[in-house]
């Protein structure tokens, strides 16, 4: 599994310390506390419900999302939004 540490993903969540996580979206790095990570998970789950996705596609086709208590703003098109959902699900999958 060590070789995976050399692979750079476009969207990645890493644990830095006990209560700090690092979210990397393309070249943007954001440090999140656990409650902020939970909030992001909740927002992404709600945005990726079929009806929400349909609404996004019918309108702007992107979302602007505040992250880490409005410290960062993300521009996410549908594929990236789904990638982020997958990364977050993976992060919580092995609870």
């Amino acid at each position, binding site marked *: 599994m060590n070789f995976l540490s050399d692979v750079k993903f476009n969207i990645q969540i890493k*644990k830095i310390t006990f209560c700090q996580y690092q979210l990397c979206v393309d070249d943007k790095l954001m440090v999140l506390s656990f409650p902020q990570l939970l909030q992001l998970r909740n927002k992404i789950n709600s945005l990726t419900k079929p009806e929400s996705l349909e609404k996004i596609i019918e309108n702007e086709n992107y979302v602007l999302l505040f992250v880490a208590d409005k410290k960062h703003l993300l521009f996410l098109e549908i594929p990236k939004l789904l990638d982020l959902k997958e990364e977050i699900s993976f992060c*919580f999958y*092995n*609870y």
Partner: protein
Amino acid sequence: MKTAIRKQMTIHPEVMDSLNNQISMEMHASASYLAMASWCDQRELLNSKEFFYKQAEEEREHAMKIFAFINDNGGASISPEIQNVNNDFESLRDIYETSLEQEISVTESIFKIFKQARKEDDFTTEIFLQWFITEQSEEEDKFRSILDIFDLMGDMPLKMIDERLPKD
């Protein structure tokens, strides 16, 4: 991430989502009872009015219990958005029948979360929900007994029926 997330939260993340939905359901039930209380209040059905004001409070207490449980166990409780509260009723009996249906759907939803918690080995939630299961069985029984009174009293005037109904 296995231990990382577990160190932050005692409850399972997906069970937490279901519990948040349950908060929303309880708060919706509370708002719905408030609408029923208002209908009774306007018609001077004093016992029913009091009963539904209390029910509204009780449902809110249930929601708050779950709300605190999620946060106490490292999760994130979400304050729900309450929509589509019905304020139109046909009769007092209709109100109590709707209430029983509402209680049954709340019970069913709790059963589902209980099963989910068991499946995910989330014992903390399982134990927590046991109180709700007992509570729901009492709630359902309460409404069934009231509907029995309606059946027994047949076509008696509404005010007379109301006087024989419990206040809590």
